[in-house]
């Protein structure tokens, strides 16, 4: 089976003044299409760093990352941006949305960059926003939405262009448990519906419980990979 993501011997060293910190050490991981993976571990264990490496937001000190079989180390900034635009959707912990754009515009933004025509954009964004349960709130600007609603918009934006991979960095960290639960439901639903691969970094036990694969990190190294079949 083709790997959506493949990391080989990834090491990332941050230099802070004279101190060198090994954020990741020799990490190897492969992700297949349609997986729903949870990266877990305490703060500073390297899960966000790993996610950034996979998304091409940062470059590893050594080792290679492959997305859909392409080695991203060989891509320049512009090509990386293109790759993210077409293949990867991001959901961050907070501040996910562009504050000057409405919910719908935020969702349409990625499609706009992809060059999709206005009519299609509108149709798709409306449908997605409906799917994530934000019908009627399309014209609201981010400050007029609740934290949970904002994260839903972020998910909607991430999936709207049907990327093969969605990277979510602590998506529920700023949400109450009810909103968090709803968001997890939404992501699982999308995973199932569109066969979209999810890699989620979190220390939210709710996500860990429901992920099909749990990758545990500690001090920049993978300590455990647990496959579970515990969701409905």
């Amino acid at each position, binding site marked *: 089976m083709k790997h959506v993501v493949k990391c080989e011997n990834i090491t990332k060293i941050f230099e802070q003044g004279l101190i060198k910190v090994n954020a990741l050490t020799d990490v190897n991981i492969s992700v297949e299409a349609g997986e729903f993976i949870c990266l877990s571990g305490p703060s500073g264990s390297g899960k966000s760093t790993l996610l950034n490496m996979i998304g091409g*937001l940062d470059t590893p000190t050594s080792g290679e990352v492959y997305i859909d079989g392409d080695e991203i180390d060989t891509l320049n900034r512009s090509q990386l941006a293109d790759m993210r635009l077409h293949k990867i959707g991001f959901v961050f912990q907070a501040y996910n949305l562009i*504050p*000057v754009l409405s919910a719908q515009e935020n969702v349409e933004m990625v499609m*706009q960059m992809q060059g999709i025509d206005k009519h299609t954009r509108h149709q798709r964004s409306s449908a997605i926003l409906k799917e994530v349960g934000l019908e009627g709130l399309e014209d609201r600007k981010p400050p007029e939405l609740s934290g949970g609603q904002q994260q839903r918009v972020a998910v909607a934006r991430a999936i709207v262009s049907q990327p093969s991979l969605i990277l979510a960095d602590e998506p529920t960290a700023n949400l109450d448990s009810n909103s968090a639960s709803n968001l997890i439901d939404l992501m699982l639903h999308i995973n199932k519906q569109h066969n979209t691969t999810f890699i989620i970094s979190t220390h939210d036990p709710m996500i860990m419980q429901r992920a099909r694969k749990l990758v545990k990190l500690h001090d920049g190294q993978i300590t455990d990979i647990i496959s579970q079949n515990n969701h409905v």
Partner: protein
Amino acid sequence: MINSIRLIFALSWRNLWRNKRRTLIILFAIILGVWAMIVTAAFMRGMVFQMLEDTVDNLAGHVQIHHPQYLDDPVIDNSFNPQSAAVSKLLQDPRIALSSTRIRLAAVIVSERESSGITMLGIDPAQESKVSFIGRSVVEGRFLDSTSDNGIVIGKALADKLQTRLGKRIVLMSQDINNEIADRGFRIVGIFDAPLDPTEKSFIFIAKDNAEKMLGLKNKASEIVLRLHNTDMVNSLVNDYAQFDKNIDVMSWLKAEPYLEMMIELMDSSMFIWYLIVFLAMAFGIINTLLMAVFERTREFGLFQALGQKPGFILFQVWLEAVLMIIVGLVIGNILSWLSVLATGDGIDVSVFARGMEMLNMSNIIPFVITFDDLIVANLTVAILGMLTGLYPAWRASRLVPAHAITRI
């Protein structure tokens, strides 16, 4: 691509109004800068324009004909025959609107109490009154009425200096054709008023026949000044007659007033320095504002990159904010300048500074003159330099490493 550009426009425009206060302040700075540039240029232009007008009006005309040596040594020997075939032919040029033939020499005017060195002009009143200011500047008494009028017309300031007045006699002294003292009494029949004291103090007018008689001249003139139909014709006319006749020298009034030519050049360069100063103040504002905006929105730029926006688009987006600000500023600034120039009407009265202005040889009313060139230079300076300035913060924004930008709270 078009979609992206449309998106970027929307983003830039909306971001501009995100921090309204800051944008308005910097916009105000740009508007003020543009306004200051244009209005100052208009004022300086007006000043030069007025100086030129005054000079042309002030006896210089558009084109002057002299004996080739007259300018170096304006003495009686350096006069020419104004009725020679060559001169007569020249005067028939269709570009010439008006002309005045003058005897123009240094002289001394003496009253009972004072004396003063002046330039005497022996003129044909009918010609002269059309060519120069004098025809409409006599405020007391009358102007000379014929080429044999026995009167003299002097300036108000000169009358004051000599402690004399209308109706009194004064004595005019000069050197005649044999270099002997030539003197004669004249009765003051008119007092003229000029915008500038020096004009009133330096020139006196007598009828040509009397000047000839007094100086022993016959059929001789010191200069002929021409007014053309259009100022633009000056250079072509001067060029056409440059080598026309060895007994005369034909030149543009600007050559006759080298300090004016210098003044114009000086104004051009000082105007540019002024533009730069205004612009520098503006540029610091623009850079500062944009850098602050970039700093505040670091996460957002990280996010844009994560969402797949290319560094070039981020650069374009931030730069566009500067450009939009500059365009808006330019439009409003230009409109405001235009309105302020309209509001001042004929010009501004600077008579409060009359003393200083007279020292600079300027009138009390300075018109605003907006030239197309000045508008272009001012607008281009702001636009081009401003846009270049905007590149720096934009470049900074585009160079952010997405991971670092996003994790920054």
